[in-house]
């Protein structure tokens, strides 16, 4: 392939087409395609959704309906570190709300937002199933348990 063409072919796009081709002939392909597409792009840009719609012949409106229904999908890019604050019952009883308030104060953002420097995205989740260690947060899927408000800043600082 000549160098000019290489620039035109986006490696992410190639991956996306591989994903679509892998699932398109299976029953109920939409959610796995969206999950893998989000792994590739970090979020689900409008152009990607349009492309999936064309390739799978699923109407864009239906795809948008599914994307906005499930908590896992995001339409805007996340920060480099995604913080999930658990507010399940066990965490709530052991002071999860205070952990959240502290993180909101330290990072100066609210639930669902990303810091300006794109370092952190803050999300509240219902339960990550580590209730024995409540209150817990997970950062990039790493679980931190038995948290105290005063230990938050130190943990956050470890994630660049």
């Amino acid at each position, binding site marked *: 392939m000549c160098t000019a063409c290489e620039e035109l072919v986006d490696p992410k796009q190639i991956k996306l087409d591989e994903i679509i081709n892998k699932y398109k002939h299976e*029953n*109920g*392909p*939409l*959610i*796995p395609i*969206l*999950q893998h597409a989000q792994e590739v792009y970090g979020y689900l840009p409008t152009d990607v959704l349009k492309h999936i719609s064309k390739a799978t012949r*699923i109407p864009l409106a*239906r795809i948008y*309906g*599914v994307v906005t*229904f*499930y*908590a*896992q*999908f995001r339409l805007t890019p996340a920060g480099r570190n995604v913080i999930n604050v658990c*507010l*399940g*019952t*066990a*965490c*709530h*009883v*052991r*002071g999860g709300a*205070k952990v959240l*308030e*502290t993180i909101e*104060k*330290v990072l100066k953002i609210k639930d669902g937002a990303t810091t300006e420097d794109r370092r952190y995205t803050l999300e509240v*989740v*219902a*339960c*990550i*199933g*580590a*209730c*024995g*260690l*409540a209150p*817990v947060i997970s950062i990039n*899927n*790493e*679980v*931190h*348990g038995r948290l*105290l*408000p*005063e230990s*938050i*800043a130190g943990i956050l600082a470890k994630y660049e």
Partner: protein
Amino acid sequence: MAENKRILVCAGTGCASSGAHKLIDALKVELKKQGLEETVSIVGTGCQGFCEKGPTLVIEPEDILYTSVTPEDVAEIVATDIMKGERVERLLLVDQVTQKPVSTLSEIRFFAKQHRIVLKNCGVIDPQKIEEYTARDGYAGLQKVLKEMSPEEVLEEVKKSGLRGRGGAGFPTGLKWGFCRQTPSDKKYIICNADEGDPGAFMDRSVLEGDPHSVIEGMLIGAYAMGVDEGYVYCRAEYPLAIKHLEIAIRQAEEAGYLGNNILNSGFNFKLRVFAGAGAFVCGEETALMASIEGKRGMPRVRPPFPAVSGLWGKPTNINNVETWSNIPHILRNGAEWYAQFGTEKSKGTKIFALTGKVNNTGLVEVPMGTTLREIIFDIGDGIQNGKAFKAVQIGGPSGGCLPESMLDLEVDYDTLTKAGAMVGSGGLVIMDETTCMVDIARFFLNFSTKESCGKCTPCREGTKRMYEILDRITKGKGKAEDLDTLENLALTIKATSLCGLGQFAPSPILATLKYFRHEFEAHIFDHKCPAHACSALLSYTIDAEKCKGCGMCAKNCPATCITGEKKKPYVIKEEDCIKCGTCIEKCKFDAITRA
């Protein structure tokens, strides 16, 4: 001395976050240093259940339990226990009654009072190795079924065992299977519901992480009994380790000939795959779950037709949850009569509870049905943290209710709990002490139901929101006298008119709290007081200038940096920035800070 020893390190989600993987690495290095890497094996297991004291490790064959182990402790454990056969006393658990260290699992009350059937392998085997499962009679149930039993006989055995669905409603499993078997169709499906969304429940995650083959074997037996050749495990995406272990287990089972075509030369075929959920609590409802697999928004639909008649892609489908499937191999291996000896008259077998909240021993507990709440909380759970008083136990998640001290001698089974205004649900037990406000808890659950309502039917979408608004107002000290009647009316309407279980049971937490803790609601509404000192809008923190020595400990630890002052002079709290976390009170050595 060190020969044939096995070190079982808990590497479940809980202990992994407490540092289990560093511990395993340190053990490997130390064993190699001592030349023991050939004689002593290290096994990273699934959840051993004792999350509170994690990371935990067990040394076999003596079954010695060490708790809160760090990499720094490794050299001593290897030198003392592995090489000399003596105990490292400082890492043993101390019995709270006798105040003496206890070493073996059978002496530790947290384990001794349990009866582990489903959790038999959890924390004992390496879940990523099929041979460890087969070495403990794994797939023996399937072999027996395929060689000796007809599908009707299997169905009969499950019916006779008295097993009821562990996902919440407690519907008899054998009966449910019978419906699916009876429906004539060219294609049928079975599904394992692993969308464990109830906050405070993590038994399904632990079973999938720690013993995934037991779920696969249970599904295989079910598929044979119902005449099904394809199945799905619908697992929530928040459980990456469970999905990973399950996928490894499916691959190994395929290679070993337990999954695929002509299984064990019996002519029986079964294909199993994992479907990762995308994050929606309502997908735990069976019709919503199936819509999700079909690639749609996970919204429930009206039943009938029930899934056994028209389920996934319109085909007859049977859905059971993880714990239910995991019971099946044990029933077929040991017989229905063996299984039915455990439990109460109408609820047979054991149930796993996730014990969390303000209790000393948090973790996973498997006990026969009919065990009292008091035994679970005070004997196994070792009572309330920090010597505080017990207030309530929340059971059954967002569909259950809070029960007070007077109900602790209730024998837990499906029927007694429903009668008391709670439900077994998935088995989450969240313990609350005197510092937990019951109005706040009711508000918490309504907030959860509001957020997770799929929006399809009006009573659930609008009703839970209105209830939440009222409760939110009460916790802010702005409740009105008529609020309690309005709440009760709304609750009963939502219960009677919602489309699915999420809506029908969303008012349960508030109905139960109103029944047992009405006085707390009244204190908020009429006296503008939160008896538990938990509702921050009704609290204020002040520093007593006379008692304050100006040490600055409060300001140093305040996460909101709202305390200011000069050394050796009284400090002041800036009220509008205070998040009312109470850290300052804990840190003050001079009792100078008051909360009112």
